[in-house]
């Protein structure tokens, strides 16, 4: 076998592997999409069709007429946005203090926050439930507050390392110009952290958007406040009699597409943020 043939074979297997990986990652979306586009009769046909024969938008129409689902979308948007904004605000204060200031008790604070990032949420479920009932906030506000338990420590952790990386000379020259610590923060450091804020904000948003345990537990008696994951988990159909998988798949596609777009647009930032803590470059 000549060297060239060997290389060709190697390259053939390499591409085969790439295609295999791609299909593995993407197949469930393909399946969800074609299922959403199939009419009811084709959906329950056995054996199933690997390529849809009749396309219909019926399922998507049903999903967009489903008040519960639309409400869920709205609730999720509110909860995830506010939780993200709050953790960015509170988190950047803490990140500034931990990344750029000297004070006693700094490393214990860092350890507490690091430990919080690994906190098993279910461990506090009953207690948090009691706290929220005691505070008697509107359900969406309780959800927002609860979501800070995973968005905030993570935000603080990433922003701390970002602030630490900013040159100290910036601080000094701002001080020479007569700015106090907070002025330095607002006018000098915060604009510089914008990229880090985008990254951590995106990751926090996705986490909050995906959350199910608290959302399910806190909205158990009030369907009005359900977020998208709960709505999709408990989807009842408009058309189908049994489990309305056509509509569920349509809803799945509808909530996945914005996320996919977001992820594709910001992919470099997301990868950066995900790997920030894990890889010391």
């Amino acid at each position, binding site marked *: 076998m000549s060297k060239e043939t060997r290389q060709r074979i190697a390259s053939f297997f*390499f591409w085969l*592997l*790439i295609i295999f*990986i*791609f299909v593995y*990652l*993407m197949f*469930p*979306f393909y*399946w*969800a999409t074609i299922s959403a586009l199939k009419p009811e009769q084709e*959906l329950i046909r*056995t*054996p*199933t069709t690997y390529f849809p024969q009749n396309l219909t938008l019926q399922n998507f129409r049903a999903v967009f007429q489903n008040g519960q689902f639309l409400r869920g979308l709205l609730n999720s948007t509110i909860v995830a946005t506010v939780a993200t904004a709050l953790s960015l605000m509170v988190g950047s*204060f*803490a990140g500034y203090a931990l990344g750029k*200031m*000297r*004070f*006693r008790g700094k490393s214990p604070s860092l350890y*507490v926050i690091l430990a*919080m990032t690994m906190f*098993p949420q*279910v*461990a*506090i*479920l*009953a*207690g*948090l439930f*009691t706290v929220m*009932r005691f505070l008697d906030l509107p359900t969406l506000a309780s959800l927002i*507050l609860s979501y800070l*338990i995973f968005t905030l*420590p993570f935000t*603080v952790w990433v922003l701390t390392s970002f602030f630490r990386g900013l040159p100290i000379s910036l601080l000094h020259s701002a001080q020479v110009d007569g700015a106090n610590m*907070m002025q330095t923060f607002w006018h000098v450091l915060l604009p510089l952290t914008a990229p880090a804020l985008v990254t951590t904000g995106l990751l926090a948003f*996705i986490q909050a958007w*995906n959350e*199910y*345990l608290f959302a*399910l*537990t806190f909205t*158990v008696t009030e369907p009005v406040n359900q977020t998208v*994951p*709960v709505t*999709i988990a408990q989807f009842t159909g408009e058309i189908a009699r049994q489990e309305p*998988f056509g509509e569920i798949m349509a809803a799945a596609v509808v909530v*996945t597409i914005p996320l*996919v777009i977001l*992820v*594709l647009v910001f*992919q470099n930032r997301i*990868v950066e943020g*995900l790997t920030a*803590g*894990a*890889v*010391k470059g």
Partner: protein
Amino acid sequence: MSQTQQQQTEAKQKQQGLSELAKREERTARWLLLPTFAVILLIAIYPLGQVFVSSFTNARFAAPDHQTQFIGFQNYSNLLSMTIRELPVETDDEGNPVIEDGEVQYENSFRVLPSDPRRYRGVYEFSLFGNRYVLGATNQNFVRSIWDTVSLTVIAVFLETVLGMAIALTLSVKFLGRGVMRAAMLVPWAVITVVSARIWEWMLEPTRAGFFNAFFDQIGIASGNISFFTNPALQIPSMIAMEVWKTTPFMALLLLAGLATIPKELYEAAEVDGATPIRRFFSITLPLVAPTLAVALIFRTLDSLRIFDAFQVVLGEQRYSMASFAQSMLINNSDVGLSSAASVIIFIIVFSFAILYMRALGVDTE
């Protein structure tokens, strides 16, 4: 005033000025950290204490006439009491062992397990040295949920690591369309877990309307009616398949970033020395990517131990993960005490894993 005295006073004043500045910095830092710690106190530390306290009570919610009392370790003993009993061979009226299909039949575990003061139910039967034993527990659901969650974690994390490494190594080669592949990897990671669970639920339908049954039937495995979610032997493997699909990309991304930090010269030198690709993997790649791998393993293991979404959506009350058990006790049974005790046990299990990992892998937290 002599000159030295003057210098001393100046130095003192300077120091005072500095420490004044340092004090102010410290004060600012405290104020900046206050909101974060207030939040942590309110939604993590206090609830955790509350859970710990209620785990020793019979607290319930939505029960106005109910008197909450301290009941000591009763919740814990209810959750964790276990016993192992030998199963006697089932005999017919003449005292001969019953044999069906060439297999010795054993007594039903229900008859063997103690029922006083509390009923023990069979969790798991196993053979050892020719005898048959049964593991019984007063709360077979919780004991099984621990076993299921831990074994799911071990298997899923192992598969993710192997697959993730394979994908990362493939993608570390430069080729046309590498950006597309990296973007594709983010998609399963970003999709809502509940959504991915429902998609897999639909693909794993117990009839040939589902993808897997249709496909397996076509290639001659089984007859197109495998019930992935009602057959107990297939429930956990199905959950593992979902979990691995959803989380492998995260593993691969971390490993890919780790691989990127390895200097190319090392491989070139090894190639000149005639090291085989396998040798190069074990002598260069693996040791250098190990720190990243360690962090990824910790993240994934701790995450997988608290698995909830997929279990709750697909299996509901059929079979529990540790987290879905605690949630179900709280919401469906309104049993705050028992749910809290389960939470404390989960907390201890998760933290033991964390400490075990840190020790074993020698991770430094800095």
